[in-house]
């Protein structure tokens, strides 16, 4: 630092002039669109495949069945997607590191069993039982994480073993052929009760205002400091799109959707939605705004570089598995809330593949280093739409398996192809 003749202001001007692309990026909406198209062509597609998939599925099912677009079915879809979204959100953490957790579904089933038994047999309040379930999930994740990070067993093998072994837990505790009813007001209410309409609107408006305020504030700071920023028009468009989605869904779900509206009043956002949104906001914050999140991406991108930078790779790996299994427990409890019972088969079926499919189709890479919490939610909606629509059409369940398997394969192919394009284009 000793030889620095030019004054500080000059140096800043120099810095500002030094990176042509930064100024170019800020120029206009047209440039922003061009940049986006270039990114997609380079293989960085984000949630685009999921959004396209959602559009296709909605169009097909809307034509195939007149009740698919009814508000009643829409609310159903939101509730069905809840547990998949949550499971997928947990999986994002493991996938970010380039690992996999095949046991997440059954870990959720085992945790939900503990929660249900705590309520039914021990008379625990719902929150204590829920915490117990999440604690069991986190413990499972801790063991898996330690086996993977400390012993160095491939996560595929460890979690396959757990996938088999954990199915024993509900089977032993419930007994084969049995099931436990989940009738707790709060837990069951997550799926069958709705947020009061007024409260729903308040939360929806708060989300929109909060997002708009944060985006504009961030934009202003970056412009003021001369840093890389999006054009204002793009920021405004993003705010507008989010407002339309959030307020539009709230409006649809606030209508009375009962089959016989004169007698019953079913209106408001199902309680599952705010739970999923709260988790989404929390994990998005953790992934994008904290050191922990940044380090997870770094490990997924280049574990050796992360290690040399002083990041505790093993500790973070264990933490990722703990988060994944903890979220699996939440997902298991949501699934129990939806079906109203826990049975020995809970979490052992399609759940995991649905969730992996949801994360991947949403834009999370199976190769590590890429993924967001929102990917899981968007992907979860796509995946949940398939059984929902097929169910309305009264299709045989083998079609459901075929379609879901096909979608998972398609998502993985998109991931692999876009990765190839990325390394070719270097985006």
């Amino acid at each position, binding site marked *: 630092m000793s030889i620095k003749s030019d004054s500080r202001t000059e140096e800043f001007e120099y810095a500002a002039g*030094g990176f042509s692309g930064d100024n170019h990026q800020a120029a206009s909406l047209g440039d922003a669109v061009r940049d986006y198209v270039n990114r997609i062509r380079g293989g960085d597609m984000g949630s685009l495949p999921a959004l396209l998939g959602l559009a296709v599925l909605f169009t097909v099912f809307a034509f195939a069945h007149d009740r698919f677009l009814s508000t009643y079915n829409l609310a159903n879809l939101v509730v069905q997607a809840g547990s998949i979204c949550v499971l997928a959100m947990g999986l994002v953490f493991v996938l970010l590191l380039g690992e996999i957790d095949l046991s997440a579904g059954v870990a959720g089933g085992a945790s939900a069993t503990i929660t249900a038994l705590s309520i039914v047999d021990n008379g625990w309040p719902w929150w204590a039982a829920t915490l117990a379930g999440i604690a069991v999930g986190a413990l499972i994740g801790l063991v898996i994480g330690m086996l993977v990070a400390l012993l160095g067993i491939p996560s595929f093998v460890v979690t396959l073993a757990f996938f088999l072994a954990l199915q024993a837990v509900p089977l032993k505790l419930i007994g084969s052929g049995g099931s436990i009813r989940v009738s707790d007001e709060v837990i069951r209410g997550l799926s069958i009760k709705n947020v009061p309409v007024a409260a729903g609107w308040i939360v929806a408006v708060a989300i929109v205002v909060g997002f708009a305020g944060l985006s504009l504030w961030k934009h202003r700071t970056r412009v003021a*400091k001369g840093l890389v920023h999006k054009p204002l028009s793009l920021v405004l468009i993003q705010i507008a799109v989010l407002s339309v989605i959030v307020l539009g869904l709230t409006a649809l779900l606030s209508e009375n959707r009962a089959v016989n509206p004169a007698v019953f009043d079913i209106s408001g956002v199902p309680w599952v939605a705010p739970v999923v949104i709260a988790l989404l906001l929390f994990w998005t914050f953790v992934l994008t705004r904290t050191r922990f999140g*940044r380090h997870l*991406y*770094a490990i997924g991108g280049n574990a050796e*570089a992360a290690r*040399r930078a002083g990041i505790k790779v093993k500790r973070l790996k264990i933490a990722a598995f703990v988060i994944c299994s903890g979220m699996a427990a939440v997902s298991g409890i949501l699934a129990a809330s939806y079906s109203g019972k826990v049975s020995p088969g809970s979490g052992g079926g399609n759940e995991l593949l649905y969730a992996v499919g949801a994360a991947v189709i949403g834009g999370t890479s199976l190769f590590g280093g890429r993924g967001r919490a929102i990917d899981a939610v968007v992907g979860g909606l796509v995946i949940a739409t398939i059984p929902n629509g097929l169910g309305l059409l009264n299709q045989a369940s083998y079609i459901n398996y075929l379609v879901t398997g096909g979608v998972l394969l398609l998502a993985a192919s998109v991931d692999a192809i876009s990765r190839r394009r990325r390394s070719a*284009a270097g985006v």
Partner: protein
Amino acid sequence: MSEFTPYPAAGTGAPAPLLQLRGVNKSFGVVHVLHDVDFAVYPGQVTALVGDNGAGKSTLVKVIAGIYGRDSGDYLFEGRPVAVHGPRDVAALGIEVVYQDLALCDNLDIVENMFLGRELRKGVTLDDVAMEERARETLASLSVRTVKSVRQSVASLSGGQRQTVAIAKAVLWNSRIVLLDEPTAALGVAQTRQVLDLVRRLADRGLGVVLISHNMNDVLEVADRITALYLGRVAADVPAKDVTHNQVVELITAGRSGELGIKDVASATI
């Protein structure tokens, strides 16, 4: 070789070495890799460390970086002996190593890579604004103009640009000494030019720079001093302007060149 004469000789008014290793020995089992090695880094100078494969360059760098311990010998920083127990102690002294395989994360952008593991925070949240400002300042002060945007992902950079980012990352922390391991090995002509200019600028800013290289043209162009290793011994520690290309090659391959080099080459064994 047991008595070390610092260069330039004491009392000439020339700068004192920033980092000095004295009589360092290092063995791995029965293999004696470093024999009484003396090595010095001066502020504002580029010291080239040359030697054939297996001469002990990497081992010496890892001893300096604190990755390997020493069997014997002194480690002096600014003339004072310091206790080095690991890479963290060395980083705390302001010594940074840029390894050949650059240790960058392809999925992160330039700013994120430069601050990896040492992110600035405001409370619990990352202070992205401050990090971007400092990254820009550092890159600009190194006159880096080839990068389009500091928010570009590292995967999209060329080899020379990646090397630049890796070096800027090392400079960001007001480091005193930067060790560069084969920085031009995989680069084309124009990119090599960029990196060598950058190496020179680092020294002009007063840093002590160590350049490990196989490429004699690079070494003779940019280095102020050349330390040649031969079979784990220091064959010569000379000002770059006093030696020719051929002499350096002889020092590397045979351990001596005319008056320079190890007196009794025949007895030098591993």
